[in-house]
Every structure is written in structure tokens, then in C-alpha cells.
């Protein structure tokens, strides 16, 4: 927003200040509201096509070339569906839950820099604000499950809440590592600290593990496979959005996809270098190239997430929680120690070696501790 404001000031020097600020705010908000739901619509098409090709079928190809207008057809269909509200449902809370699901995701996108200097609000506490508002989406799950007055909805909501709350801790701890090394909570500072060849945080040992932790946490918080217990077909009816139909259901889907987009954008900002890449710099052309780099990285992450959805089975709910508390949490704590060692050991190669060795050893130890005991706990009762 500040970049737009400065550009407008250069353009229209006579206009009053509040008008320029208002126009800059509208441009920033309009950009966010237009681009990211547009990316969401694109993802729905890309996911169905990608999943179709992974599953050896074509995917949508009737509506428009290569099925590109499928999101529009989906949107029209779901808008014209009847909005069924159960009679005993708590009307006010039932109505409010999809809204509370969507708004935190949009708020978290406010601090993401999509280009060189192009961030909606450059908060001093950027990353903390993004995490704070995404924890507010937990309420939406519970409100949806409670207001439906349906035991299955409530059970599904409890499981979804347990999943989201469990995965918040490793996610935030993996972000803490980046904040420790960068020394600032502002997203622009975090991206600027990744300048240079192989300067992205993912190329450092704590950054690679941190990126893995953050991606696991982001997938789990958004409810994507392999953590999509709430919306799996074989699970408890449809989880917390059983009693929703029509536009409210579409809002839930949009909230889930926007939450995953917001988390992936924050992951790109913190680990993959944000808008940095060859050719991104100040100036109009540099800004456009930096925007291109950001969206290219975001689309690459989306492609990987769709790929994961198509190929991996989903975890059972107790496996899911055990994965969070017994594997990801100790690994994130050891990651913090490793980052400290990397930062403070005076000689660089020794620092790299020590932290990489510590992380590799802890991964191996945690895998050994978690794998065998858990698999042997199952027992099959066969009918005689």
C-alpha cells in the first residue's frame, strides 16, 4: 500500500492526503480480494485436472477449453442450490460460522508481500499478526459443529479442532526459527534477508527442516490431505459442515482453500525467498518480475500440495495427533537449538556441519522412536 501511495503522490501532487490514502487502501484491498479468490478458482480447476491425470482419467474437459470454465460452472451451480438450515439449528451461529472461516484467511493475506515493496500493510509485527488471525479460524469449526445440533457434526468438529490446535504449535515454532535468525517480525525484512545466491532460508539446514515442519503444519491446519479427516468421504458423514448446503458450503470450501493459500504464501515468504529471484528489483519492470516470481513459487507449492493429495493416503486421527505431538514438536524444538548453533558458531563450515548433523540425528532418532512402537501396537482380531 505504501508503494501505491507514493506512486499516486508522484502522479497527482495536488490531491489531498486522505484521498490518496483512501485510493491506495482501495487498490490494495481490491488487489487482495480479486487476486487470491481468483487463484482459489484456478486451484479448483487445477486440482481436479491434476487429480484426474494422477488417477488416469481426464478431469473436467467439457466446459470451455481444457475445462477452464469449470470453476465458473461450479460457482453458478452452488449459488443456485437451496440453502437448507435445520430447524433446531442455532440460526445466528449457523449463519456466522462460514464467515468466521473465511475472514481470518483474508486477514492473514494482508501482511504477505506479493512483490518488491508490495505489501498491503507493512506491520511491525507482520508474522505474529498472520499467525494470530489464523488461530481465530478454530472458532469457525466449533461454531459450525455446535450450531448444527447434530451429534455427527459435533464429533467431526471436535476432531477438526483437536487437529488444528495440535498442529499450531509446530507451525509457530518452525516460524520462530526464521524470526530468530532474521531478527524482525516484519515480512518485508524477512524477505530482504534472503537476498543473494542460495540465500533462501530453505537452503540452510534449519530452514529445510523448518520448511518441512511448516508445510506439514500448514497442510494440517487447512485440512488438506493427508490430514483431511474432517472432509474425507469415509469419515463421519461430512464432519462439521454436514448440515451446510449451497453458498455456505462454498464459503467453507473457500475458507479452507484461502487458509491453505495464506499459509503457503507465508511459507513462501519465510522460506522460499518471497518475491526474490533473478531480475526482481526496484522499478516498474523489476516489480512486475518480482510479482511473477512470487506467484511462480506459490503455484509450485500448490502443485506439490495437489500432487501430495493425489498420491498419499490419509492419516487416521490418532496417527495424525501422534505425528504432531511426538514427531513434529520435538523436531521443531531441536530445530531451534540447531539454528542457534548455526548462528553462533564462529566458523561457518563448522556451524553448518554441526547443525546439519544435529538435525539429521534427531530426525533419525525420532523416526525410530515413533515408527516401530506404533506399528506394533495394532492387533488384529480375526474371526475364527
Amino acid at each position, binding site marked *: 500500500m505504501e508503494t501505491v501511495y507514493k506512486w499516486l503522490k508522484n502522479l497527482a501532487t495536488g490531491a489531498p492526503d486522505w484521498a490518496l490514502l483512501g485510493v491506495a487502501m482501495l487498490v490494495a484491498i481490491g488487489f487482495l480480494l480479486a487476486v487470491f479468490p481468483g487463484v482459489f478458482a484456478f486451484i479448483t480447476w487445477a486440482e481436479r485436472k491434476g487429480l484426474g491425470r494422477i488417477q488416469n482419467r481426464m478431469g473436467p474437459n467439457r466446459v470451455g477449453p481444457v475445462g477452464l470454465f469449470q470453476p465458473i460452472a461450479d460457482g453458478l451451480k452452488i449459488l443456485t442450490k437451496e440453502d437448507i438450515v435445520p430447524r433446531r439449528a442455532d440460526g445466528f451461529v449457523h449463519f456466522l460460522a462460514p464467515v468466521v472461516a473465511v475472514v481470518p484467511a483474508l486477514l492473514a493475506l494482508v501482511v504477505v508481500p506479493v512483490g518488491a515493496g508490495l505489501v498491503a500493510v507493512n506491520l*511491525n*509485527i507482520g508474522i505474529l499478526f498472520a499467525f*494470530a488471525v489464523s*488461530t*481465530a479460524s*478454530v*472458532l469457525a469449526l466449533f461454531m459450525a459443529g*455446535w450450531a448444527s445440533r447434530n451429534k455427527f457434526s459435533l464429533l467431526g468438529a471436535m476432531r477438526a479442532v483437536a487437529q488444528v490446535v495440535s498442529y499450531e504449535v509446530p507451525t509457530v515454532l518452525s516460524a520462530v526459527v526464521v524470526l530468530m535468525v532474521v531478527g524482525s517480525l516484519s515480512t518485508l525484512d524477512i524477505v530482504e534477508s534472503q537476498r543473494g545466491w542460495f540465500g533462501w532460508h530453505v537452503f540452510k539446514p534449519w530452514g529445510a527442516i523448518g520448511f518441512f515442519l511448516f508445510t506439514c503444519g500448514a497442510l494440517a491446519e487447512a485440512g488438506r490431505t493427508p490430514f483431511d479427516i474432517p472432509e474425507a468421504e469415509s469419515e463421519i458423514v461430512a464432519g462439521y459442515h454436514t448440515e451446510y448446503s449451497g453458498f455456505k458450503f462454498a464459503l467453507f470450501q473457500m475458507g479452507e482453500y484461502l487458509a491453505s493459500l495464506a499459509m503457503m504464501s507465508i511459507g513462501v515468504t519465510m522460506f522460499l525467498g518471497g518475491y526474490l529471484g533473478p531480475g526482481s528489483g526496484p522499478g516498474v519492470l523489476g516489480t512486475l518480475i518480482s510479482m511473477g516470481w512470487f506467484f511462480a513459487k506459490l503455484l509450485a507449492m500448490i502443485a506439490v500440495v495437489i500432487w501430495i493429495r493425489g498420491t498419499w493416503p490419509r492419516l487416521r486421527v490418532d496417527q495424525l495427533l501422534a505425528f504432531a505431538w511426538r514427531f513434529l514438536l520435538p523436531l521443531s524444538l531441536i530445530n531451534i537449538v540447531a539454528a542457534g548453533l548455526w548462528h553462533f558458531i564462529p566458523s561457518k563450515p563448522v556451524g553448518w556441519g554441526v547443525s546439519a548433523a544435529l538435525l539429521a540425528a534427531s530426525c533419525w532418532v525420532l523416526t525410530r522412536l515413533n515408527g516401530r512402537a506404533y506399528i506394533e501396537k495394532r492387533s488384529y482380531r480375526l474371526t475364527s
Partner: protein
Amino acid sequence: MNAAFWILAAITVAGAVLAVSQRNLVHCLLALVLFFLGIAGHYFLLRAEFLAAVQILIYIGAVAVLILFAIMLTRNVTGTEIPREILGGKWWTGAATAAIIAGLLAWAIRADRTTATPSGAAVLVRELGLTLMKDWAVPLEILAVLLTAALIGAVVIALEEPPHPNPLPRRGEGTPRPLGERPAAPSSAQTGEGKSGGAA
């Protein structure tokens, strides 16, 4: 930023009033969340941004969910969910006390008309972190111990125990039996425990 203050003040007061006056527990909780959001907005206005983010993170992200779980675990599974009266007996004493205290505070505030203006200063998070680690390191460690103790304590208190052989009587059922005698109605105690255990 006058308009922002008045709008936020209206939201905050509305949230607080609704939170203590609604009949439905979940509506009370949603009003409380609105109240927390209003307070966070005030912190943003007062240039305490870190505190505003911490408020949203802790209160809306954690305390509200905690209260939701408590509401869910203490539902009256049989009979009506919402009691007939929401106010206790002799509720006017509580209301009178609150009114007197409000009057006293308002009188004390009115009596002081110092012209203090906001300095507009904001503290950088870096400075907060340095202060926390250097001057306030010991309180930080004590806070960590306190949070751990609260966590363990809450788990121990809320842990389900096997049913007591002589449960406390409900109001109006007579004096509790001394320990050592046989329980009068073990079946009802068992099913009561089982029901709340099933709902938990």
C-alpha cells in the same frame, strides 16, 4: 482518530454487555469474542501492536476455545439446556454493588482533569524482546513454571476418577453420609458417571 475510538468503544461495551446478559451460553461466548476483538482494536489505537496481536492469539485463539470446550463438557445432557431464570436469588445486591463501584470510579475519574496527551510512541518488538530477556528474565522463568503448574493442575483436576462410593448429595437431598457406610444408590451414581464420561 476520534471516530475509530468511538466505534471501537461501542463494539467493546456491546460485547461485554451481551456477554454477561445472554441466555444461550454460546451466544455469550461469541459476544465475549467480540469484546476481545474490541480490546485488541483499542490496543492497536494505543500503538501497542504487539500486545494487540498477543491478545488475539491468546484470548480468541485459546481462551475462547477453552471456554467452548468447558461449555460442551458441562452440558445438561438430560432435560432442557437453558435454565428458566438466568439470575441468581438476590441478584439486585450484585447489580447495586456494580453500580456503586461504577459511580465511585466515574467520580474519581471526573475529579481528575489533567490534560495528558498521548505521546504517539510505539515500542518496537525488538526492544520488547530485549527487555524481556535482560531485565525481566527471572519473571519470565517464573511465568514458565507457573504456566506448567497451571497446565498440570488443570489436567489433574479435570481428570476423570472412578466414581466415589459416597457421592455428595444434591441440594435438598439431606446430609452427606459418613464414609464407611454402603452407598445408597450405586446404579444412579454409575449411570451418572457413565453418562458424563460418555459425553466428555
